[in-house]
């Protein structure tokens, strides 16, 4: 009934991107890898911020939980890193469920500070080597490279395919979610909580669902990050990371998956392009953020109205 997903120009874009790596040196491929990772993170955060309208500035916490779950299970128990992928997602989702449940009713900026708080608490716990398993500020090193069908993924070019295929899966999953009863419920909550309740939507439980799904996905991304870096430390999951993810979502267009991907290109790619400006590069970057927001206040690609094909119905007669 709905317009099939495959008509989206996004797929053309993916084909172009997949043709690129052979033409690029490892550095630029690695830049693309980072873009891909942040696009996935952005899409998972977009569900919370863009679709459900919850101000989350602590997404890095869930990302961290996933990464650390993977790192610990891999280095301590030698489980193959990719086999832990679902488990990393599960742990992060469970964590989100437990910490967000008592505070999910907070509104707007109050929820924002609480998510910042959760992010900081997780980071501090990691730095302080909680339960003696996180390695403190050293973090965890020696995380295995992923192995697929007996083939070890090592170089940036190889990682490219792993990350971008995961990104495509992410896009498909989140697009489908967006185009469903659940996705609509998220949007209803964003637009008007009271009216959403009036439609029978259990607001608290759906808000929590959004957090859990977003966190689960961020947790799985953490797994890929861990195996790509082979070392993780609390620094990689600071408040600043959450800010970056948040910026990606808003700059790209809150509620828009296409926008989020473009956002990741800008926020992660742009500083690399500005590299030659050396110490002035972050200055230019900050300025660029302001200017882009002013030029496109609703983001680069704001979400479009979902369209439904109802022509066949319209032509019918409804004498009730």
């Amino acid at each position: 009934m709905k317009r099939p997903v495959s008509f989206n120009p996004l797929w053309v874009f993916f084909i172009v991107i997949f043709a690129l790596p052979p033409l690029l040196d490892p550095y630029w491929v690695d830049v693309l890898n980072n873009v891909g990772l942040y696009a996935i993170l952005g899409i998972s955060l977009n569900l919370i911020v863009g679709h459900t309208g919850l101000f989350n500035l602590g997404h890095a916490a869930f990302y961290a939980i996933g990464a650390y779950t993977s790192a610990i299970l891999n280095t301590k128990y030698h489980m193959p890193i990719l086999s832990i992928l679902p488990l990393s997602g599960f742990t992060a989702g469970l964590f989100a469920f437990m910490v967000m449940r008592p505070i999910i009713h907070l509104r707007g900026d109050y929820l924002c500070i609480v998510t910042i708080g959760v992010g900081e608490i997780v980071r501090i716990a990691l730095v302080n080597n909680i339960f003696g398993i996180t390695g403190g500020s050293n973090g965890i090193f020696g995380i295995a490279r992923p192995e697929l069908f007996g083939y070890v993924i090592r170089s940036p070019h190889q990682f490219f395919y792993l990350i971008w295929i995961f990104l495509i899966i992410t896009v498909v999953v989140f697009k489908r979610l967006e185009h469903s009863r659940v996705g609509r419920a998220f949007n209803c909550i964003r637009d008007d909580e009271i009216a959403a309740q009036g439609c029978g939507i259990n607001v608290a439980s759906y808000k929590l669902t959004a957090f859990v799904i977003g966190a689960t996905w961020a947790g799985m991304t953490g797994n890929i990050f861990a195996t790509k870096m082979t070392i993780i430390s609390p620094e990689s999951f600071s408040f600043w990371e959450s800010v970056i993810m948040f910026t990606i979502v808003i700059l790209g267009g809150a509620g828009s998956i296409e926008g989020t991907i473009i956002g990741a290109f800008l926020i992660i790619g742009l500083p690399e392009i500005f590299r030659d400006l050396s110490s002035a590069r972050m200055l230019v970057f900050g300025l660029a953020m302001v200017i882009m927001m002013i030029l496109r206040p609703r983001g680069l690609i704001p979400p479009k109205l979902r369209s439904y094909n109802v022509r066949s119905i319209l032509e019918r007669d409804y004498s009730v």
Partner: protein
Amino acid sequence: NGANEVKIGLMGPMTGKWASEGQEMKQVLDLLVEDVNAKGGVNGMKVNLVVEDDGGDPRTAALAAQKLVTQKVIAVIGTYGSAVTEASQGIFNEAKVIQIANGSTAIRLTEKKLPYFFRTCPRDDEQAKVAVQTIRKLGFKNIAILHDNTTYAKGLAEEAKGLLEKEAGGVKIVFFDALTPGEQDYTAILTKLKSASPDMVFFTGYYPEAGLLLKQKKEMKWDVPFIGGDATNNPDLVKIAGKEAAVGFYFLSAPLPKDLPSGEAKTLLEAFSKKYGNPPNSIYAVLAGDGFRVIIKAIETTKSTDPDKLADYLHKELKDFPGFTGSIAFDEKGDRVGEVYRVYKVDEKGQFILQP
């Protein structure tokens, strides 16, 4: 120009929290490169310094490393933080690029025995050893250890704690905790420290916090000796604390350039002051210079830019190289050989005085 130049990379924090370190590293290397090229280069090839910013952050460092690799540098100097170095190590090693770190003192970096990794700075465990010797020599019994939860400071603190506890000798650790770097009011921590009544405090963190601790301790009228790790070695420490508060502060460090009898150090110091208006602040910038000179020496001697030959030379043949910070040689892990650490004390004028 390919054949006629040799590319050396510098990876350092040009932006972010440690930007001052990175920028000074670049200043030192710029000076040295100018010098080498003025003398006709190395083996007739001009040296081209390729600088990449790691932002003091592991993810950026991984990218910076990729970028340096794709630019075909034969060796990389840097970087400062241990976690940051760690994120780049694998990439350089896989690409067979020599890396000479200048500020990453974490023990495990060389425990992996990567064939192309070296460092001109000493390791934390060596520093801990010197710290414990000093503590014993000065006769302190009740020790408080304070770190800042960074990889480096915590490593040093734990290493020292372990050594002190092992070598009984009546030394007691009465306090062990971490402050949050970047804050400015440490009175709450000092109040707590004071109530543990130590007769000495060993702070393993960095100079900005050390300076503030000294200053606020003085304001509280609490008279307890402080010893710092080598990250407190920076003239700004005295500026932050004020001379009155800094006086009597002990710290461990690789020898300062001014305390080196070598002509090299003196020349560098003069040239640096002439070009930039002041002597270098950070010993790590000078250690980056050492790394650079070592690699140039290797290229000159082996008449090659082949990484295996260079690494082999550095591991085995390089001996007693006159570096700015003393004589340099590397062991099979890539660690610098020899006692590097000295003990310094701040005098009334705020000068750092080498202790016998």
